[in-house]
């Protein structure tokens, strides 16, 4: 590991100022589970490391009536797994968190870090995009802005964060009635594995007619960013979805993705697995939508 200067700011403002001052030379340290292996392998060689874990305002889980669920960016995946609020209102987030890495890594790794690292395979991204999440960013001086998560990712390791900006919160809207969500992660092992293909689906069905009123289908690990597939969504919206529609949507997704060949899988295999996993994920989301409660906020 190369030497670097270490900073441990106690406030957000101090952290933003440091980031701005050392723009291009600094890395933010949160859970460290991506950063430290990068330093160890000398793939990342920052001159400055800014540890934001000493900032208390970034570690909380709140369920707010207007915003839905709000996660501070320092919330770890094991905190997501053990949160009663999440278990009751957003069980899908627990389900996804359990698919990430290992118990030890989940004790360290944070939701904000997973998003800011911007790996195309990041497990939290497809499901959060499918849930229509937004992220709150803060810049030096304290000005905040929010951005749909879908627009946050620019490329592998690249985000919409401006110099000096820090991701402070993730907002996840309330799940409406008759809405089902699913995240399927294809891997060759069951733990400590990076997704070959990750598919998140959200499906909402109308009352009585069971016609589909909303779909979001988001694929991870198959493009330079997590990818939403409007072509597949269009096939399903407005219909009482049958198995042929699901097949057609899955095929459209397979055609839309732009995966690479790497050590985990070939481009062709990924495309075919997108088809298979989209089908399964849509089926699971539809089945969950059918069994989801009728009451709640419209």
């Amino acid at each position, binding site marked *: 590991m190369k*030497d670097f*200067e270490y900073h441990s700011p106690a406030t957000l403002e101090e952290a933003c100022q440091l980031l701005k001052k050392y723009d291009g030379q600094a890395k933010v340290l949160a859970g460290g589970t991506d950063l430290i292996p990068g330093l160890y392998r000398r793939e990342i060689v920052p001159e400055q490391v800014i*540890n934001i874990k000493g900032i208390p305002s970034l570690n909380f889980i709140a369920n707010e009536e207007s915003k839905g669920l709000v996660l501070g960016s320092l919330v770890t995946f094991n905190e997501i797994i053990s949160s009663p609020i999440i278990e009751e209102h957003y069980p899908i987030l627990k389900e996804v968190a359990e698919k990430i890495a290992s118990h030890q890594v989940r004790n360290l790794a944070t939701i904000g870090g997973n998003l800011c690292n911007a790996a195309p395979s990041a497990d939290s991204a497809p499901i959060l995009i499918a849930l229509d999440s937004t992220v709150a960013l803060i810049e030096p001086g304290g000005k905040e802005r929010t951005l749909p998560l879908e627009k946050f990712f620019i490329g592998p390791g690249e985000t919409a964060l401006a110099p000096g900006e820090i991701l402070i919160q993730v907002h996840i809207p309330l799940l409406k009635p008759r809405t089902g969500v699913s995240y399927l992660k294809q891997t060759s092992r069951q733990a400590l594995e990076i997704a070959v293909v990750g598919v998140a689906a959200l499906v909402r069905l109308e009352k009585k007619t069971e016609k589909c009123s909303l779909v979001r289908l988001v694929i991870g690990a198959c493009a330079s960013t997590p990818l939403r597939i409007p072509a597949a969504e269009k096939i399903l919206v407005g219909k009482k979805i049958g198995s042929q529609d699901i097949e057609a949507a899955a095929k459209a997704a397979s055609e839309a993705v732009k995966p690479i060949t790497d050590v985990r899988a070939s481009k062709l295999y990924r495309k075919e697995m997108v088809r298979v996993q989209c089908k399964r994920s849509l089926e699971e989301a539809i089945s969950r939508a059918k069994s989801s409660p009728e009451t709640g906020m419209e």
Partner: protein
Amino acid sequence: MMKHRLNLRVNKQDFEVFVKPKTTLVDLLRDELGLTGTNKGCGTGECGACTVLMNGNAVNSCLVLAVEADGAEITTIEGLASEGRLDPLQQAFVDEGAIQCGFCTPGMILVAKDFLEKNPQLREEDYKTAISGNLCRCTGYVKIVKAIKKVAEGE
């Protein structure tokens, strides 16, 4: 490079040390404090050999900078036994023969310790989930799972 002063408590003993920012917790424990029961395998959070408890949570100590442990309470395998008696998990590993070469054992025991404390109700598959971040290259997993299960079920 400027060294940082940090104060931490390891196995109920207070330490004040000076470290470079790039020193990882596992290197501090092994090289500075002489606690070589914590093993270093991959150095990138994949093998679990360096697992320690940090403020009660099992973490890969290769994924934590020593400076991050300022003010933290660390437990390594050396800190589990008390008054000459092994921790129940250590005893179960011995009794079940869940140790072959021993390299993975401290990490296995410490992750199991954290997992059992946080999950009072365990299903059969949870024992494997608990140690899914720990590699045993002797492949002695069956006996390791048996030892953890023995403690969980209070035998």
